[in-house]
């Protein structure tokens, strides 16, 4: 399967940076838990044993420490923001780096005896594997971090939270890890659609260069407008944004999403087969 070979190849190309990203995330989060928990324990000791504040009063003032709280510290948000930024950047780099430099690898990729759309699929698969990989690692990290917190802070001073509660309390994590499986598919489905549209726009640019950049932007904007059209149109013609019932809206958006994805793949197929230029 050439597709799998290409995916493997793309993954291997990114793996070093990826491991660095994973490393930073793991180290920073675990360090964050240890540092913050120790700080808190320090505060507890200071207040209760030195200043002789009653325990209840201390808790009233400072509250218990919890993983949910920690996820909102820079130790967590920093590396996660970094990973997001890196992957967003990589969305572009995954295509453009094949053209850049004196070793124009795109020649080789386009000359592989396989359907060229496989390049498109392999790149999108790689992006998704990388994203889901980070999510998976985060899901593995949370129980571990919970354990560290449990070891450092005694029971009375911490709120015991389940993984789901930590995710909900963090606020942002529930975007990547919604608690319902269907929502997971919806969020990543929308993500998939956005990436497919972006890749199509990139292929426009790669095919027609400056003119293509314009076409790509027009394409992206059109897809966005189409996707939002049920809301925009109802708002524009004055019947109100809630003209459709939520489950109708869901089905309409689902259909529009599928149309946008299908159209983008069709256009990408055409561009990469007939219009792309080295």
């Amino acid at each position: 399967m050439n597709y799998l070979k290409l995916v493997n190849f793309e993954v291997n190309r990114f793996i070093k940076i990826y491991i660095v990203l994973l490393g930073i995330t793991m180290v920073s989060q675990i360090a964050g838990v240890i540092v913050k928990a120790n700080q808190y324990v320090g505060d507890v000791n200071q207040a209760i044993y030195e200043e002789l504040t009653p325990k209840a009063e201390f808790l009233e003032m400072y509250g218990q420490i919890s993983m949910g709280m920690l996820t909102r510290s820079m130790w967590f948000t920093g590396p996660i923001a970094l990973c997001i930024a890196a992957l967003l950047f990589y969305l572009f780099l995954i295509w453009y780096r094949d053209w850049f430099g004196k070793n124009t690898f795109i020649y080789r990729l386009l000359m592989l005896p396989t359907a060229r759309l496989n390049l498109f699929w392999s790149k999108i698969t790689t992006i998704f594997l990388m994203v889901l990989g980070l999510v998976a690692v985060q899901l593995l990290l949370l129980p571990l971090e919970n354990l560290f917190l449990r070891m450092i802070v005694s029971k009375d001073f911490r709120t015991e939270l389940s993984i789901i509660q930590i995710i909900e309390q963090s606020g942002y994590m529930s975007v990547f890890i919604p608690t319902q499986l269907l929502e997971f598919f919806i969020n990543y489905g929308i993500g998939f659609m956005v990436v497919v549209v972006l890749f199509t726009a990139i292929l426009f640019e790669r095919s027609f260069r400056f003119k293509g950049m314009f076409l790509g932007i027009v394409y992206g904007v059109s897809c966005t407008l189409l996707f939002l059209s049920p809301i925009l149109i109802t708002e524009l013609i004055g019947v109100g944004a809630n003209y459709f019932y939520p489950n109708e809206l869901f089905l309409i958006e689902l259909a529009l999403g599928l149309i946008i994805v299908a159209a983008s793949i069709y256009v990408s197929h055409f561009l990469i087969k007939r219009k792309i230029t080295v």
Partner: protein
Amino acid sequence: MIEVRDIKKKFGRKKVLNGVSFTANKGEITCLIGINGAGKTTILNAIMALTPISGGEILINGEKLHKETYERVAFIPDAITMLPQMTIAEAMEFMKDFYKKWNQKRADELLSFFRLKPEERISSLSKGNTAKMNLLLGLALDVEFLLMDEPFSGIDIFSREQIAEVFTSHLIEGRGVIITTHEINDIEHLIDKVVLLDDGIVIKDFHTEELRAQEGKSVVDVMREVYRQ
């Protein structure tokens, strides 16, 4: 046989190819000659569907291009088509992975012929060795046609000699070869056929031995006539 029929290509308003036609036969070395900017590279890119053409068609053994074409025609561009961080062995592994027509025996033979070390990284190769490695990637494929873009330009004399040897060897025997060059001296005796390009059209197209037999002229003589005008 590769048939290029009346192909046209524009970059913006500039017409780079303005109806180019020629054929390249199996078992022959066809040389596209033109001073820089004559669209030689564009023609090779077009044959490999690496750039769209605005008119005309290209047939390979009578068929239009499709994905299996890349198992029949190998293109060796003027820069190496592998990632700089790969080692030679990894690059060969990559080719072996994707091409059914990869001939490992031939690849190993070329490796020792060019005296390349498999563990060396592509980014650390000398110019000459990069060119040789690039050549290896194409030559080790059991394809019917080989396209080479300026295989001799910008490399040292010894590498050039070594590469020239390839043209008289079994490595390309029986295959059809199209090479581009802007400088004919080194290879005048190596080629069968010349396609002279200028301003996006074919000015003249002849077999070298026939030219010598019938007109008593060298290729350079013809070039002089053509380009001095």
